[in-house]
């Protein structure tokens, strides 16, 4: 795996168990991630799937160093960024971007869209922040007048597009998409997925797509890692994993996913 943009090696994360907190001394810890090895190949979309609580979002946040793992290493283009401080991470920040699940929470309600998209550009020292922000909004299919609005004046789909524009405006090498379509209705979802596909191919993005929706993952991703209880049970090309799951957990996840198949019986009874 020489062409991995981001690699995780033995990444573990333990947090204090707040439910069993003691009055004195360190309380018991909960293992959120258990020794994860994962490679995200350049230019590919890797799905990270699993049920809620499996640690997939936490793993994602470790990959872009929004969180630091307790042990293990995270390599970005071969550079160890596991314990990099803010100053050491600064040159990589524009390359490690994220689109959040809930745009209502991830877009500052007090700021106008213009400021939300331009802000990260200015922080990263772009002099032409204004032009780049306008270009990014256009690229995600938002009309220019959206820039003067506040987030609560937009629809859910538009808000999510703003979140994408904010990440894409920096022209990052990597984007983490954390459950980013699960809050949207199906038709909006389809539009956002088409946009993602186009962005990945136009900009040569590498992406990690965290989701519990196997249908969406199959459609969008070329690789997939299946997580359960803080570990990866299986990873590989999406066709291999979904069509020939080796691990029983993957098979049971697949079973649980609703399939878009129409039972002829429904149509008959509806016609009567």
């Amino acid at each position, binding site marked *: 795996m020489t062409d991995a943009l981001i690699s995780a090696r033995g990444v573990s994360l333990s947090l204090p168990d707040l439910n069993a907190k003691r009055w004195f001394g360190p309380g018991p810890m909960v293992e959120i991630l258990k020794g994860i090895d994962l490679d995200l190949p350049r230019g590919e979309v890797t799905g990270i799937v699993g049920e809620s609580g499996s640690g997939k979002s936490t793993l994602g*946040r470790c990959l*872009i160093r*929004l969180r630091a793992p307790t042990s293990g290493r995270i390599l970005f283009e071969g550079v160890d960024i596991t314990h990099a401080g*803010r100053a050491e*991470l*600064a040159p990589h*920040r*524009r390359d*490690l*971007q*994220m689109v*959040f*699940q*809930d745009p209502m*929470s*991830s*877009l*500052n*309600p*007090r*700021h106008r869209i213009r400021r939300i998209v331009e*802000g*990260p550009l200015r*922080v*990263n020292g772009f002099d032409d922040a204004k032009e780049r922000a306008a270009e990014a909004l256009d690229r995600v299919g938002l009309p220019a007048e959206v820039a003067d609005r*506040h987030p*609560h004046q937009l629809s859910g789909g538009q808000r999510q597009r703003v979140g994408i524009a*904010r990440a894409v405006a*920096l022209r990052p090498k990597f984007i983490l998409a954390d459950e980013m379509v699960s809050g949207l209705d199906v038709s909006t979802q389809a539009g956002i997925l088409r946009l993602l596909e186009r962005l990945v191919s136009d900009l040569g993005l590498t992406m990690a797509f965290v989701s519990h929706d196997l249908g969406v993952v199959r459609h969008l991703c070329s690789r997939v890692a299946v997580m359960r209880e803080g570990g990866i049970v299986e990873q590989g090309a999406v066709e291999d994993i979904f069509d020939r799951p080796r691990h029983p957990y993957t098979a049971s996840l697949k079973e649980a996913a609703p399939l878009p198949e129409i039972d002829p019986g429904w149509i008959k009874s509806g016609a009567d």
Partner: protein
Amino acid sequence: MGRSGLRLRLAGVWLSVVVCAAVFAPLISPQDPLAQDLFLERLPPFWIDGAEPGHPLGTDSLGRDVLSRLIHGSRIALTVAILAGLAACLAGSAVGLAAGFLGGWTDRVVGRVIDVWMSFPPVLFAILLVAVLGTGLHSVIIAIAVIDWTRFARVVRAETLGQTRMDYVASAVVAGRGRFGILAAEVLPNVLPLIVALLSLEMGIAVIVEAILSFVNLSISSDAPTWGGMIAEGRTQIHFAWWVLVFPMIALFLTVLALTQFGEGLRDRFDPVFR
């Protein structure tokens, strides 16, 4: 507009009356607020027989003009409201922001200090402080700020904690912003409306505390026209001259009500998220 607009307007009208009274006190007072005239003591207000034209709201037991004392009293009330309110607001908000944003041991220490602080009965605490600092307007202001910063700290801490957990903060970290920048540019604008509403509430409380301290003669000199002092004097005269007690109470009530309503009205009107 609608209900909140009406509320804002009524509160604004009364507050501008009070502010004008305070600013132009020497020009609009019919009499000198300190001048005593024992031949004109306990004159009734203008609509009752026996009133004198120069004393529209009557006089107290020393023959001092009630309206003039009310007008001059608004200066002290406003000074205390603004200075003590701002001092408590700045100190408490800074502590609350730091505790909520930094979390960890800062938050734990601040939480304990607030708990201990708030377990003192506030009025006794104020009386004790003024007794130690000596009477005078500055001690009243210091006492109010020292007691009431916890009111801001507690609420601002909780709000900051909630806002800091929002994804827009994580998003600013992903963008590479520094901690102080995130606090100032992302979190603070979301906590500010709450601080403004609390400030106007606190200004009302400051006016009341000043009145309480005047009532027990621990504010400024007993001669000076303060609303609380007038209420204290009026209490002893209630059976002979009710107006000495009632007019300062009305002024106090309306001003405190206007201050609290003004804050809420402002938030409803100018907060883009609540609108």
